[in-house]
């Protein structure tokens, strides 16, 4: 399995090389969400990376509308000679890179892209230009394994690093600080809300917008052997928010020189595995659904819209077959109780006695004890 990380300065590069990595991600200030490198700094680092035999992966993950996108894309050709691989999230950046460069591409599929078919289609679309897919952190391990096995393109997963929860281009912290020195100034905050069970969300605002992270960092280093066996081809370390020296500690875990427990104790942030073991983020959905409302198939006639005790029930007949005096009804109470009744009085809204009421109109029948408004009515 390969490893990859971000370098922000020359020291980082030397360290990366010492661990035997063969590529490095460089974040340019205009293209990468958390990139800090100016053109000059980028050239310098890229050159040094090449001296060290490291492939330069250029990250273009800022999402941008056309007004920013177009001029920025036009700047990219000037940087290309230092770049070995482009790493992209926005389909626009992907499309542009495919058509305007010859470079291999890495596709960041971390947002959405939770089905094999979609990932396969991305790979097919790029033909042989796609050299890697960066998988979503929301995938459980059985899916990671399936994708690694089924996709013809190698896959990467975050091994250690912050979990990005939220990304907006709007500057949300600026209004809260008295004085912002410059457009380039980064503002950091820690947020908590009484309405959230978690406390201490790191929040960062920079020139690209505002970002909120999870209070814990993602870590599956203790599963690296398993991931390798599953066929994962690359594990990423994102230490841009922590001391880069933790790369040493992380690598010691991978080489079995240090226990994962020791690493966990020494790491400055709490760690979590996210959905690595299982993803049950849809199990609550049946509870969110209004089952009463869902139950409108088959013999459904309509809904009780008025229940006047001792007097009448008004039913809004939705079924195009309408309601006949001879119909026997099943009434489903909002609480689930069922009643069966025969109709012995059927009237329309003009209070005329009728034999039938058409669909999409109101029928007035005799009152039935226990039936409430919003009860559903079916042909029995």
């Amino acid at each position, binding site marked *: 399995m390969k490893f990859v990380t971000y370098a922000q300065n020359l020291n980082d590069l030397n360290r990366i090389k010492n661990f035997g990595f063969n590529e490095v991600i460089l974040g340019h200030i205009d293209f990468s969400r958390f990139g800090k490198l100016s053109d000059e700094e980028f050239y310098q680092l890229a050159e040094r990376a090449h001296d060290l035999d490291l492939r330069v992966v250029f990250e273009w993950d800022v999402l941008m509308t056309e*007004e920013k996108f177009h001029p920025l894309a036009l700047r990219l050709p000037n940087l290309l000679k230092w770049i070995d691989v482009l790493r992209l999230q926005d389909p626009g950046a992907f499309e542009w890179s495919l058509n305007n460069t010859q470079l291999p591409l890495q596709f960041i599929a971390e947002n959405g892209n939770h089905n094999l078919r979609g990932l396969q289609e991305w790979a097919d679309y790029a033909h042989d230009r796609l050299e890697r897919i960066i998988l979503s952190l929301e995938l459980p391990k059985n899916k990671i394994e399936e994708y690694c096995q089924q996709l013809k393109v190698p896959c990467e997963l975050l091994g250690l690093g912050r979990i990005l929860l939220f990304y907006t281009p709007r500057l949300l912290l600026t209004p*809260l600080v008295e004085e912002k020195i410059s457009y380039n100034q980064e503002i950091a905050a820690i947020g908590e809300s009484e309405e959230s069970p978690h406390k201490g969300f790191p929040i960062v605002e920079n020139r690209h917008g505002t970002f909120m992270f999870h209070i814990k960092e993602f870590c599956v280093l203790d599963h690296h052997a398993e991931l390798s066996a599953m066929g994962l081809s690359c594990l990423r370390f994102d230490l841009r928010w922590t001391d880069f020296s933790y790369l040493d500690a992380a690598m010691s875990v991978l080489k079995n020189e240090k226990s994962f427990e020791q690493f966990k104790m020494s790491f400055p942030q709490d760690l979590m595995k996210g959905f690595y073991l299982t993803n049950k983020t849809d199990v609550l959905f049946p509870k969110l659904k209004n089952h009463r409302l869902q139950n409108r198939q088959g013999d459904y006639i309509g809904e009780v819209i008025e229940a006047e005790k001792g007097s009448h029930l008004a039913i809004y007949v939705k079924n195009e077959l309408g309601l006949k005096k001879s119909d026997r009804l099943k009434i489903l109470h909002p609480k689930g109780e069922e009643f069966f009744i025969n109709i012995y009085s059927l009237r329309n809204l003009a209070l005329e006695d009728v034999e039938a009421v058409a669909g999409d109109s109101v029928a007035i029948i005799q009152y039935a004890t226990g039936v409430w408004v919003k009860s559903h009515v079916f042909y029995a």
Partner: protein
Amino acid sequence: MKKHFPEILAPAGSLEKLKVAVLYGANAVYVGGQKFGLRTAADNFTLDELKEGVLFAHQRQAKVYVVLNSFLHDKDLAEIPDFIKFLSEIRVDAVIVSDLGVVKTVASLTNIPIHISTQASTLNVEAAKFWKSVGATRIVLGREVSVKEAGLIKREAQIEVEMFIHGSMCMAYSGNCVISNFTQGRDSNRGGCAHSCRFEYSLDLGLDSMEKKKAYFMSSKDLEGLRILPDFISEEIDSLKIEGRMKSHLYAGTMSKVYSEALSFYQENGHFLSEDLMSWEMELKKVSHRTYTQASLVKPAGPDSIFNERENSSDSEWQMVGKVLEASPKTGIVLEVRNAFNQGDTIEILPFNGKAVSIVANEITDIMMKPLSRTKPSTLIKLPFVDGVERWQLARQKV
């Protein structure tokens, strides 16, 4: 040269709301089935209701788009073909999808036009070209895109574009927020958003003072683009979308009415200098909403687009009191009451076209003709017939 006018695309969280939106002037509605959409808790349509809704809309020259815009996981995708075939049979006008896997699945099964959901955050020409090349016929652009940029995207990528013109807004780039997933165990991109961006947060900004700042710093004001309708027209935007499948009948009706009337005025007069502009704006204010903003429609949304207030502090002074179930000289006006009102109160009936009709509710009876001095929610009442009042119209009252 003939001007290009956009369609008004309204939300329909239920069959009734679909009817309301279409009757109040929407040219198209978007609806969700019981699965695959982003509004898990919404009423949503059964298969029978979808069929009826499509029929109702088509009889009135309106279109129906069905959302399949969850980020579908493998198991969801496996269930989708039968539903797609059904949608094709009932002749829905398009499906709205977010994910390449779903695009390809739909395209392999039917010829239903494919619209790329705003969930895909399509922001630029190149992204639109990509989606077009994989089979999309329309892009619902990200809310960060300006009208000018949208026009450019349409021209350069040669594809239909749809933009939000009204409603609540996700503060994040759509599809790029997983707060609920990781903090509440609910997948926001499959309909489980817990609206954490609307919470009040205390923020430690590392300032000198020890005090944390409290703010609703992640909450967005609501979008309102009425005044820039001419820009949408001149940029030839194809569809103007109103957010809000979870919102009320009154919302669906008012929004469809206001935006379609404003558009018709422009169509007839070639300008927008209508005396009605103020009254349309007043109408938009009569529906529950957060403070309005144009967000990024003209220029990138600035600090004034943040809704730094507690939720539910709506400035709406109007509420829906009922829906007309029947209106004829024979039956009178039969109203299904949603919110109570008293004898002698003035209520307004919102006609499908034109100004609201005021009625003083002096004579109220129940449907058995017993006089009432106060109405009750979830009951039917009768008022004397008034010319112009029709079935499905909505009644409202100043509170």
